[in-house]
């Protein structure tokens, strides 16, 4: 027989005005199993809490119900008090007779009757309640950062500076990402590489950062605080421990005419190469697809000229397993580059723009490379087809973005600003040139952004035409741009020497596959989903995984850096304790009766349920049952409602508790 104490609060007059609290306390005292009941003016006050603690001791109470305000208000307060009195805090519950009763009803009899009923139900809940202990999960204080662009670099440096070890994994041969490709950055026009490369070097030199470039995530297992990540190190064909970065191999490589990815295919590189001069690490990689040695077996020049003997044609992909406690995903973006609808993609192409067939129609990133001092033209704006300086350049915004009919409805966020920047860079370099911009809206929210845009229009003489382009075609050495000017209400035709498309920002290729490995969710465009759009913008719904940068949605550099630091702060919060404490409201499996249909696993949004083998003493498989990882379980209870035999049960909301409450109705 239980010994429950019921404490009815007046809340000053807030409750007692409409509810006869004395009667409620009296009725509660008559419920079988209630050993003590009383009413008091302010239960949450110090004397009130003392009253509760004393009563627990004096009446040897094994459960406590406080009939007062909403548990969302004071549940923690009273559970603490109960704990201080030596009770398990989960044996203390609250009956909400204020928000759900006295404040919303006027008739005293009816309200009192309702309050009695609420107390009656909640007494049953306390009676069937169980002692629960908080779940503790050990935390491995090492972080994994996926992606070595500005987002990953910022997050890695912040976590490493806090004294924790960081593993950074980058798919390309060098870190730096897209920011390393940019010429100048808005709104200050400072040189991107000048601010980026020092950070890259910091990563390489940081004692707390292990950098794996030319590597990919193979497999992710485990859960918050305890992930095991298998990293695949792609064969570089160059031994990083031996290479001195002298670069002789690159100068001697006979195959030099390979379009350079870093320059968007507009510069050339050899088959053994570093993507760009400031690459980190400065260790070349052999592009096996284009290397004569790998294709025909006849060359081997680089190995011959390499003093330290670092070139290794036999190198194979290798794998390492890293134990980490938290993961920051910072895989960034790519630009929309399709000219026709790819097979199976919901996104349409822009064949009508001649994109991909007319050489002088380029995208924004290519323009960055043309404008960059380290680019293929040495910073001169020269058009790709004939190397002439273009005198009329048309910039088109929102190519792919905000185009529902093409399959992408979102705004890519950075194009308005970088197009304005492009017109300025162009005007600075080609003084007699004219820039035209076709735009839908100029979106410039950001510090100093609108001033920057106005400068492009008012001082740098860019002609902004509000309207979209329908078609472009080559006529002679000009590109005829057919568009509309909706402010004047007319059709426009411009003969351009060069056209720059501000193509949409999309998640990186393979973003969905990585998400599946990580067990995080993504939207229909493959951008990763944050746990809450407003209040948890850097957390994934999967505990222990955080997002930084454009992999979550289009972002400019300041926003990316902010989010990266925020993700790092989240990691550090997690690492601040040796053990992670979690609310014990999690599901448990009754292995005796579980028949392993795994309906629970199918409905679990957290991926908390695993298959567990039950074996007899001889090691023979008896059956497979569900197992809930308490570190991952979110505590929603959907599994229990789904389980046909109710062999999985959510602590704190057991069927027994709920049924007892219904019986007491």
């Amino acid at each position, binding site marked *: 027989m239980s010994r429950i104490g019921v404490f009815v609060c007046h809340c000053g007059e807030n409750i007692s005005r409409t509810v006869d609290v004395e009667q409620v306390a009296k009725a509660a005292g008559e419920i079988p199993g209630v050993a003590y009941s009383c009413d008091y003016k302010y239960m949450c006050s110090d004397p009130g809490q003392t009253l509760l603690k004393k009563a627990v001791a004096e009446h040897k109470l094994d459960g406590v119900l406080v009939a007062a305000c909403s548990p969302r208000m004071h549940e923690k307060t009273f559970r603490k008090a109960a704990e201080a009195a030596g009770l398990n805090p989960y044996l203390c519950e609250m009956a909400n007779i204020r928000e759900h009763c006295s404040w919303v009803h006027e008739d005293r009899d*009816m309200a009192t009757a309702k309050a009695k009923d609420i107390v009656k139900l909640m007494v049953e809940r306390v009676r069937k309640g169980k002692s629960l202990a908080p779940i503790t999960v050990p935390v491995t204080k090492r972080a994994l950062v996926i992606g070595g662009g500005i987002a990953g670099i910022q997050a890695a440096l912040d976590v490493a500076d806090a004294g924790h070890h960081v593993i950074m994994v980058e798919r390309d041969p060098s870190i730096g990402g897209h920011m390393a490709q940019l010429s100048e950055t808005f709104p200050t026009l400072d040189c991107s590489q000048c601010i980026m490369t020092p950070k890259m070097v910091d990563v390489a030199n940081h004692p707390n950062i292990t950098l794996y470039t030319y590597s990919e995530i193979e497999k992710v297992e485990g859960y918050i605080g305890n992930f095991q990540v298998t990293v695949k190190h792609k064969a570089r064909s160059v031994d990083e421990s031996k290479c001195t970065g002298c670069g002789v191999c690159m100068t001697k490589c006979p195959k030099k005419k390979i379009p350079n990815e870093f320059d968007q295919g507009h510069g050339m590189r050899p088959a053994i190469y570093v993507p760009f001069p400031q690459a980190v690490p400065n260790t070349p990689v052999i592009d096996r697809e284009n290397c004569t040695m790998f294709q025909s077996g006849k060359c081997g020049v680089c190995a011959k000229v390499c003093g330290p003997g670092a070139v290794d044609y036999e190198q194979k992909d290798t794998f390492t397993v890293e134990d980490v406690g938290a993961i920051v995903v910072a895989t960034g973006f790519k630009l929309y580059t399709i000219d026709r609808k790819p097979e199976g993609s919901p996104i349409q192409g822009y064949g009508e723009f001649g994109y991909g067939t007319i050489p002088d129609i380029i995208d924004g990133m290519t323009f960055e490379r043309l404008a960059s001092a380290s680019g293929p033209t040495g910073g001169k704006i020269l058009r790709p087809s004939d190397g002439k300086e273009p005198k009329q350049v048309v910039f088109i915004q929102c190519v792919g973005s905000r185009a529902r009919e093409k399959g992408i409805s979102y705004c890519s966020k950075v194009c308005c600003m970088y197009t304005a920047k492009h017109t300025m860079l162009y005007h600075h370099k080609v003084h007699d040139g004219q820039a035209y911009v076709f735009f839908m809206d100029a979106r410039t929210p950001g510090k100093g952004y609108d001033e920057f845009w106005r400068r492009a229009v008012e001082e740098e003489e860019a002609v902004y035409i509000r309207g979209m382009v329908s078609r472009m075609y080559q006529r002679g050495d000009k590109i005829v741009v057919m568009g509309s000017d909706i402010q004047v209400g007319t059709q426009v035709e411009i003969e351009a020497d060069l056209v720059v498309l501000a193509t949409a920002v999309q998640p990186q290729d393979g973003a969905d596959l990585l998400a599946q490995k990580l067990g995080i969710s993504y939207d229909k465009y493959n951008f990763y989903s944050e746990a809450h759009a407003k209040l948890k913008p850097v957390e994934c719904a999967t505990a222990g995984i955080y997002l930084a940068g454009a992999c979550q949605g289009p972002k400019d550099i300041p926003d990316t850096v902010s989010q990266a630091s925020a993700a790092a702060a989240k990691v550090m919060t997690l690492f601040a304790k040796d053990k992670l404490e979690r609310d014990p409201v999690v599901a448990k499996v009754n292995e005796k009766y579980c028949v392993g249909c795994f309906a629970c696993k199918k409905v679990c949004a957290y991926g908390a349920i695993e298959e567990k083998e039950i074996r007899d003493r001889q090691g023979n498989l008896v059956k497979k049952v569900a197992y809930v990882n308490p570190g991952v379980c979110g505590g929603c209870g*959907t599994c229990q409602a789904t389980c046909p035999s109710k062999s999985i049960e959510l602590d704190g909301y057991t069927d027994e508790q709920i049924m007892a409450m219904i019986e007491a*109705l």
Partner: protein
Amino acid sequence: MHAEHIKHDFEPKIVAFVCTWCTYAGADLAGTSRMQYPSNVRVLKFPCTGRIDPVFILRAFQKGADGVLVSGCHPGDCHYMAGNFHARRRFAAFRALLSFVGVDLNRLQFSWVSAAEGGKWVDVVTELTERVRTMGPMPEFKELEHEEQWSTFAGASVDKSTVLNSPELKEAYDSIG
């Protein structure tokens, strides 16, 4: 002083199964905003609508509820990501079943009430209470509770010859007399 309360002949018993994150909080907001609604509703708190088993609804009707409300977060707002989506399918199926066996679905209400929708909580509860009040007490499950196995045979409403369609049964029944 308090406004004169209208006394009704019938006060329906309404049970609400709500999720803690949205609807419970919405009901709290109705309280802090001092909105008024009929006092007939008894609230049972769950972490999520995904936790609510159809058996609970059945049991509530058996235990004398005249109306049942199930309410949780709007789609996409679930604190647990997808609990309400699963619940939505489960209850869509359960409704069809109840309707097929002849339960009046006007007694079973589902709603999405967010933590910000104190007003909607009041509307939903008031509407259900008043609707059920005009419908009168729910007799079906209550009657079952009080009936015994053979009572229908004893009653005049059923033709024994169609029910006791085997000699063994007839014999068994007659022996009980």
